[in-house]
């Protein structure tokens, strides 16, 4: 499962709450951050997440742990930490039929462990593998009935990339308009990528540390 959003921006909060109500368990989640309060961390209340692939998950020191942090420190969930630029590019590779990502990010760090180094034109790169998911939960500002999505400001973030890399893409939007009412110049995700649209009133996301 991929979940779009960057803290308060572009997070499909209603869909996350729906997934909590549904109670699906043993989830592998791919997301920029887990967050607190109304973000992905709510799925940890009932231990729905088993494995997390993310950039922001565990703070080095904090007065208050998220539920994910509690479960991580108790060894109840597993975690793959990925540099943010590598994470999004692995998703893009998964969605666009590329075999991987060659990046200098992570060289000579723990990120390199267990990975291949490939030399191209005299420079070393890490080979990072593509990421795909069964389902992507994303958020956009507006959709038409065909599935075209328009984003607002930094609400884009991971959403347009995740929309390309999952077998089933469900988008939470604030408004649905008739096909033809969106300006083709402003479409951030073409209709081909979107399987389901759900109109919801946005739930405000609180920031409680990253």
């Amino acid at each position, binding site marked *: 499962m991929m979940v779009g959003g*960057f*803290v*308060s*921006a*572009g*997070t499909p909060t209603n869909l996350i709450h729906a997934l909590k109500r549904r109670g699906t368990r043993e989830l592998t989640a791919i997301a*920029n*951050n887990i967050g607190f309060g109304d973000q992905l961390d709510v799925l940890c209340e009932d231990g729905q997440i088993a494995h997390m692939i993310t*950039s*922001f*998950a*565990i*703070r*080095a*020191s904090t007065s208050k742990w998220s539920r994910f*942090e509690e479960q*991580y*420190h108790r060894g109840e969930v597993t*975690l793959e*930490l*990925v*540099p*943010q*630029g*590598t994470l*999004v*590019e692995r*998703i*893009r590779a998964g969605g666009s039929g590329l075999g991987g990502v060659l*990046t*200098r*990010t*992570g*060289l*000579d*760090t*723990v*990120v390199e462990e267990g990975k291949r180094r490939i030399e191209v034109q005299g420079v070393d790169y890490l080979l990072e593998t593509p990421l795909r998911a069964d389902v992507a939960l994303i958020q956009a500002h507006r959709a038409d009935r065909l599935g075209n999505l328009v*984003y*607002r*400001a*930094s*609400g*884009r*973030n*991971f*959403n*347009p*990339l995740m929309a390309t890399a999952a077998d089933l893409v469900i988008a939470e939007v604030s408004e649905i308009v008739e096909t033809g009412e969106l300006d083709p110049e402003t479409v*951030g995700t073409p209709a081909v990528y979107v399987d389901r649209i759900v109109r919801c009133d*946005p739930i*405000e*996301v609180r*920031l409680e540390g*990253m």
Partner: protein
Amino acid sequence: MAGLTRELMALRVARELRDGMVVNLGIGIPTLVSNYLPPDHGVLLQAENGILGYGAIRDEGGFDPNLINAGGQRIVLRPGASFFHTSDSFGMIRGGHVDVAILGALEVSARGDLANWSIPERGGGSIGGGMDLAVGVRRLIVAMEHTTHDGRPRILERCSYPLTARACVDLLVTNLAVIEVTADGLLLREVAPGVTPEKVEAATAAPLVRSPDLREMAL
């Protein structure tokens, strides 16, 4: 430990920026830098969550959840801003289109290795965009306290914490000094008002070369 406050460190770092530069600010002290740019500045601030051309951190007014910096703080837009998704944002960063990143640090080594994301004994850490920034930007400025809360040096012969990237730091601005990372090692260029070079050297666990034109910071 004497020396600069966090605000004065941010002010000193802001002096490194010129109009037209594209600059990414990390979480912590670096974020404060935006408050020390003149109101009509021509610096383009880049947030890795997909904004180029944002302005000051916004303390009041309606909350737009889609107008935040990479630290999740609400921001204002400046004229000429643009939005893009995370893949394009890190293309900008990795591709060398960001002139300067200002990052916090836990440790920096004599040859400019950076450790800023994990303290293993406290459990975990979060990588975020720091590794991409360290590898991709043209100039990396670290803004940090010269020593830990209990007085241990953070500038070391080699880093003890997990690395962010090797040989990536160009300039260090601490509460005690401004130090340049050169091919020949660490060059002490400026000391904070009231701080002696000897005091900086005593708080540093790596060889420091005093610059021929070593001087006191002008703030």
